[in-house]
């Protein structure tokens, strides 16, 4: 392997050699520069591969042929090699991105860039303190030089502010170095660690050096001077500045922290966390995209600084975590900056222009997922291991602060992504050219490769290696195919996976699998109505299904959590496709991520840092920890089942989603939450916290959700919102059932899982079909569609009969089991809410069917056709299933009943032939169906005999109070259908929960908007901020002692 010193030598040599070549042939000079950078990248990559595969040992390079303490030595281990590779690659791509100014300014600029990359590499390799200082100064001057390449006039001011603060840093660092030398007698980092510290002022010396390096990392309160560079410099340089310089400075801090000893680590953690959370909050109110990226990169540097601060606890996972975070930040941030070169406008909404190029949207999504740390990227593995290690060491507050920071960061990143997908693009907003797109896609490839490497390195479970995720990647590649072909493939994939795994599941998991996988396939039939290629739909849908499939397959906490996040990611992209769904998709994502982080914390506490922790051992958690694990996991799962209080994302997300996405998200996705609750309650059972039985709390939440969900559904004017609120109510029922913690309660919940999937998908598809024809979701704008859309009417009719629990159909089965369940459950008061929710449920269902299908037909709708055949087909399948399930509930329930019996150890239901008897009553679905049908047919025959030749008359043919209506709109009673209810119970409609969550978000935004005002742009005040920061930390850390 060639010696890494060559990296420095090539960098410098080419920089000097450029002077010799003729100034005229600029493109040749540019090629030489690129060749040099490529060579440096090749060397570092060679070292990475050699070190990773163990072919080479950590290289110790002695300059001047003398042993280290007396000469400068360089070291290249695996960490250094990885950083070197990132830096040189970032340098190469940034040079490509900055080709226009480089060619314009000639060899001077190229030399400065080369020296900058060399200096950053030197900073990573050197093991000598003063050499560290020289390289930092080199970076400072080179940065000042390159910043000038930007067209932006403000770059000069930014450069000057940068230089002013670099001076202050230089002063502090020099004093720190010289007094460390005086105290320890040597300048070499490894040598200092060996010898004990004699001079009592050494602590202050170490402090000065450390604080100088930390200020170099642009910590939150004192980083105004660096943010201007991000805003005004050329994006190519900003990429290099944040990815390469940021990572190298972090590594420098890490080197100094090793010899400074563990006493300083809490200080580093404190500064890091303050910087991470602070800059993320301030970034919330940013409108300029590059400044936002600046804040985000400062935040990420703060996060890694905090991780460095925790190195004593992380042990050997430290490199894996810190490396994962640094590399994913470097690749993502560099990619985003290079992308910002393509977008013409500088505000966040101008990024809507990237929609013109599908690969760019994929790139944007990849980078955001990497920054937030979603699977399958390294950040995800790193965050998981970090959480495990922190909880194992009992440092929960630090973990919660980090998760809070990540949540805030995901807030503004996903809001930005929403703008990019949803806002209308200004024309010519994209300066897409092959080179910039090429670089960005290279970064994307780098990101996915890192994801694979981190997955393999994780040992336990490589997300990218699982079959479902590979299917998602396959669908990403199949994008150019027409939608119908992809739809067939998708359905085949789902059914194939179900056939493959169906054998190994217990009855309960089997039902969930049946609802989720083949259920998804049935809903996908409805996607045949779409024409064209539907870019982005199939990968997102398959990601959601992959998440669900893996959720059922999961055996350990990590697999479960990875599946949970993939499912959330996929469903977010699906919901975002809706026309008006941007704010709702954002609130969905934030709630889901909040819930996922609650799960992460819960799993971490439960496993206590033991990796890999099997899922079925959840019950073995220590008794004092169990309630907290219970609360965290319950909150996490309830964000997904939209229990009251965590529900405000659901109405918007389900209502604004596309026609075939609403059933998927509502019918299937909510079941994931229920599946989680089942697992949790199965393992943890009844827990009580501060004397309150938590399952009793869940009962109350379930009851309140059921009642309020139904009440709110009555007052909706939009059909899909009505169904969305009804989903909240039905999930409330299911949650109530599970929380009863008795056999029949769980059976009732399972009934709801099946029933809710069937009729909610049916109703959403029906309303979707009506929407496709009438182009409106507002019920009072429709009416009288029964004659034009008979099949849709039948499906909605069967749906509401089943849903309201009226006897012949399966809804009644659920109610019957519910009654038997509450008979022996000790509680009384929550039942009242459930009893009230029942009939109210019937109201909104009737409103749905009356306002859309009955009443007066509007003139514009006279010539409407039936909903598209592909939409009606799945509805008919569901109708058939409902009737079949109503007559033979045993078909699905008997095995599950046995399984639940094995858990609770009792067998309350006796399945005798077609009748089901319980301790309190009996239910014979076949008899009920037969009696009703016989009576119905006989009465119908009587009416038919008497009135068979009636002539069909239009609804319009009516007289009321001696007047004939002249326009159908006036006589269709639909708007504010339940006015009396609104007068009587309107007070329940006050948006208590949404005002609470709105208050929380506005509060954080307000804080962000207030604190960012203190960056007033004045270079001198920034310098004062730095000195103030140094003095403040000095007082806190040293308390004035030497």
């Amino acid at each position, binding site marked *: 392997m060639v010696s890494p010193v060559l990296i420095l030598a090539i960098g410098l040599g080419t920089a000097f050699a450029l002077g010799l070549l003729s100034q005229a042939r600029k493109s040749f000079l540019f090629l030489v520069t690129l060749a040099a950078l490529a060579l440096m990248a090749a060397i570092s990559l060679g070292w990475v591969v050699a070190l990773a595969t163990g072919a080479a040992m950590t290289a110790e390079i002695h300059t001047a042929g003398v042993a280290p303490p007396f000469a400068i030595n360089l070291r290249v281990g695996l960490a250094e090699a990885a950083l070197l590779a990132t830096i040189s690659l970032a340098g190469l791509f940034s040079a490509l991105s900055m080709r226009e100014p480089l060619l314009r300014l000639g060899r001077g600029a190229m030399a400065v860039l080369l020296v900058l990359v060399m200096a950053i590499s030197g900073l990573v390799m050197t093991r000598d303190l003063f050499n560290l200082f020289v390289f930092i100064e080199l970076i400072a001057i080179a940065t000042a*030089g390159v910043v000038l390449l930007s067209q932006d006039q403000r770059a000069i001011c930014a450069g000057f502010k940068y*230089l002013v603060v670099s001076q202050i840093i230089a002063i502090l660092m020099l004093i720190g170095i010289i007094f460390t030398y005086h105290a320890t007698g040597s300048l070499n980092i490894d040598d200092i660690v060996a010898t004990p510290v004699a001079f009592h002022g050494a602590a202050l010396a170490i402090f000065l050096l450390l604080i100088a390096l930390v200020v170099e990392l642009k910590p939150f309160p004192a980083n105004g001077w660096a943010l201007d560079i991000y805003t005004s410099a050329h994006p190519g340089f900003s990429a290099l500045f944040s990815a390469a310089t940021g990572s190298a400075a972090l590594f420098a801090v890490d080197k100094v922290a090793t010899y400074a000893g563990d006493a300083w680590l809490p200080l580093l953690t404190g500064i890091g966390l303050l910087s991470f959370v602070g800059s993320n909050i301030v970034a919330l109110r940013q409108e300029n995209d590059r400044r936002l990226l600046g804040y985000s990169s400062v935040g990420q540097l703060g996060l890694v600084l905090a991780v460095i601060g925790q190195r004593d606890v992380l042990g050997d996972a430290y490199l894996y975590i810190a490396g994962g975070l640094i590399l994913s930040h470097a690749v993502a941030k560099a990619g985003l900056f290079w992308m910002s070169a393509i977008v013409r406008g500088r505000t966040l909404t101008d990024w809507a222009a990237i929609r013109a190029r599908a690969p760019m949207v994929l790139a944007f999504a990849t980078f955001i997922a990497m920054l937030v740390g979603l699977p399958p990227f390294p950040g995800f593995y790193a965050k998981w291991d970090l959480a495990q290690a922190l909880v194992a060491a009992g440092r929960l507050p630090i973990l919660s602060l980090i998760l809070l920071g990540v949540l805030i960061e995901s807030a503004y990143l996903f809001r930005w992504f929403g703008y990019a997908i949803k806002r209308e693009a200004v024309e010519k907003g994209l300066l897409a050219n092959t080179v910039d797109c090429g670089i960005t896609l290279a970064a994307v490839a780098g990101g996915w490769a890192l994801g694979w490497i981190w997955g393999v390195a994780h040992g336990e479970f490589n997300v990218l290696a699982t079959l479902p995720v590979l299917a998602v990647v396959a669908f990403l590649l199949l994008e150019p195919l027409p939608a119908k072909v992809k739809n067939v493939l998708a359905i085949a994939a789902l059914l194939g996976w179900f056939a493959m795994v169906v054998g190994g599941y217990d009855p309960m998991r089997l039902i969930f699998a049946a609802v989720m996988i083949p259920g998804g396939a049935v809903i996908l039939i409805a996607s045949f109505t779409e024409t064209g290629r539907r870019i982005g739909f199939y990968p997102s849908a398959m990601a959601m299904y992959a998440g669900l499939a893996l959720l059922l397959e999961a055996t350990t906490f990590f697999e479960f959590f990875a599946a949970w996040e993939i499912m959330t990611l996929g469903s977010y992209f699906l919901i975002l496709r809706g026309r008006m769904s941007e704010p709702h998709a954002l609130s969905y994502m934030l709630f889901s991520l909040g819930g996922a982080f609650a799960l992460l914390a819960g799993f971490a506490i439960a496993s206590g840092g033991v990796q890999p922790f099997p899922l079925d051992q959840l019950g073995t958690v220590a008794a004092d920890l169990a309630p907290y694990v219970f609360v965290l996991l319950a909150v996490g799962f309830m964000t997904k089942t939209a229990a009251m209080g965590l529900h405000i994302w659901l109405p918007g997300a389900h209502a604004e989603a596309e026609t075939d996405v609403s059933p998927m998200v509502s019918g299937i996705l909510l079941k994931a939450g229920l599946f989680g609750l089942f697992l949790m309650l199965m393992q943890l059972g009844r827990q009580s916290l501060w004397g309150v039985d938590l399952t009793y709390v869940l009962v109350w939440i379930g009851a309140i959700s059921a009642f309020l969900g139904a009440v709110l559904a009555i007052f909706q004017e939009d059909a899909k919102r009505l169904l969305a609120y009804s989903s909240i109510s039905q999930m409330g029922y299911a949650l109530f059932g599970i929380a009863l913690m008795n056999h029949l309660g769980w059976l009732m919940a399972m009934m709801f899982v099946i029933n809710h999937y069937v009729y909610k998908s049916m109703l959403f598809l029906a309303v979707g079909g009506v929407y496709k024809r009438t182009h409106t979701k507002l019920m009072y704008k429709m009416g009288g569609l029964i004659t034009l859309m008979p099949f849709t009417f039948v499906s909605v009719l069967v749906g509401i009969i089943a849903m309201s629990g009226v006897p012949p159909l399966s809804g009644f089965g659920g109610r019957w089991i519910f009654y038997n369940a509450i008979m022996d459950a000790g509680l009384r008061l929550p039942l009242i809410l459930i009893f009230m929710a029942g009939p109210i449920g019937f109201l909104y269902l009737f409103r749905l069917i009356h306002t859309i299908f009955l009443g007066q037909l509007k003139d514009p709708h006279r010539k409407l056709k039936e909903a598209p055949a592909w939409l009606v087909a799945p509805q008919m399948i569901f109708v058939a299933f409902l009737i079949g399930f109503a007559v033979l509930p045993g078909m699905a329930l008997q095995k599950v009943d046995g399984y639940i019996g094995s858990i609770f150890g009792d067998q309350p239901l006796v399945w005798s032939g077609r009748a089901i008897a319980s301790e309190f009553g009996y239910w014979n679905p076949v008899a009920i169906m037969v009696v009703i049908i016989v009576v119905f047919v006989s009465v119908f025959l009587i009416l038919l005999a008497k009135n068979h030749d009636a002539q069909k008359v239009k609804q319009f043919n009516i007289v009321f109070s001696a007047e004939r209506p002249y326009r159908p709109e006036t006589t269709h009673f639909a708007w504010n259908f339940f006015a009396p209810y609104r007068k009587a119970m309107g007070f329940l409609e006050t948006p208590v929960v949404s005002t609470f969550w709105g208050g929380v978000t506005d509060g954080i935004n307000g804080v962000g908007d207030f604190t960012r005002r203190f960056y007033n742009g004045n270079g001198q005040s920034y310098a004062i901020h730095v000195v103030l920061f140094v003095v403040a930390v000095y007082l806190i850390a040293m308390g004035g002692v030497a």
Partner: protein
Amino acid sequence: MAQIALATGFVLILAGLYGALTNRDILRMIVAFTIADTGVNIVLVAVGYLPGRTAPILDAAVPVAEAGQRIIDPVPQALVLTAIVIGLGITALMLAYAYRLFRLRHSLDISTFTELKW
């Protein structure tokens, strides 16, 4: 002797910092920074000074054999040389920036260059 040098060095640094942070004129800030740099250089050399010893040059007066007892610590001097040149480099760069800033807005007052904020 060393304490005096250290004290003057630190006083110069503090004076330089004070000047840099209070003066609104850019040129005066740069002057203040040069003074601070000189102060740092003095501190660096002062740390290397051992009372009662001579310059680290091995010539007739200081034979190689007893060099260890006769010379002061050469390392800080080596560092100072680099520090001085770096100081000059940064000062020259700041002057060039000051000139460009002046050409931009025809004023040298730092508070006029504040459009990059929030």
